[in-house]
């Protein structure tokens, strides 16, 4: 690549941009694939908090109830009407051993929207609602066991 058979006398002074373009193209393709997969259907910004526990993420097993900024419900990223939520949750948790459900609610929601959802969950087999939050930037949980888990991940 750096050698040309034609003009043997002149040494090329331009930088070789081909590897850079390769890298950029790969990055571009990866982000094109990853970004819609992450944001598919449902988008909510969870509230920030300091003392939060770290949970391993297991997309196959975890059940996530999303509530977006308009108060719409999403069960595992698929939109669901409020009157169908109870039956859907019951169907999932009837034969499960783990009765934990993640609730990813938008930070500017009214609490009544979240408590409505938790009420539906409580009546349909969910025992623990894990409210998804973001770690406040630059802070660390005040609970020691959280810090140990956060480092171990």
């Amino acid at each position: 690549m750096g050698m040309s058979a034609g003009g043997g006398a002149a040494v090329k002074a331009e930088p070789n941009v081909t590897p850079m373009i390769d890298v950029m193209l790969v990055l571009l393709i990866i982000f094109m694939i990853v970004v819609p997969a992450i944001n598919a259907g449902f988008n909510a910004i969870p509230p920030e908090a300091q003392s939060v526990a770290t949970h391993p993420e297991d997309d196959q097993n975890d059940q996530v109830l999303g509530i977006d900024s308009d108060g719409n419900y999403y069960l595992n990223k698929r939109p669901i009407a409020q009157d169908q939520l109870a039956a859907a949750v019951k169907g999932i948790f009837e034969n499960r051993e783990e009765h934990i459900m993640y609730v990813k609610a938008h930070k500017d929601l009214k609490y009544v929207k979240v408590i409505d959802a938790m009420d539906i969950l409580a009546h349909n087999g969910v025992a623990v609602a894990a409210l998804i939050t973001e770690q406040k930037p630059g802070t660390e949980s005040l609970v020691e066991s959280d810090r140990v888990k956060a480092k171990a991940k």
Partner: protein
Amino acid sequence: MSMSAGDSNTGLTNEPNVTPMIDVLLVLLIIFMMVIPMSRKAIDTQLPDPTPRPAPPGPPPDQIVLEVLPNNQFALNKTPVQKDALFNRLKETYNGRPEKIIFIKGDTTVAYSDVIFAMDQARGAGVTIIGVPPKG
């Protein structure tokens, strides 16, 4: 890159140029390192039992209920607490108390983030179990 000043200038290098491939692989590696160990941060809350047993006779247990009221007001077992004093009050309450259980009751008009704030402060003050009282 494929030209080296030290070598004898007669021979063309015959090996494939692996540098771009290594670049691409390194980028892939970095991206997968960032993507795979994803974990989420969450506050666990215990939901109410849908089939409550009748309350046991005798004096009510000395449970601690933190109410989240409108306008950034909080009340710990009915005693009003200011937002910035909440953490120290919780810490005093739970210091030396064996049951690290709290019930956080949010008013229907408050913002979700205020309730999360209360839960955050409670966990920071040593509470391990956060209960959500039944709606209504």
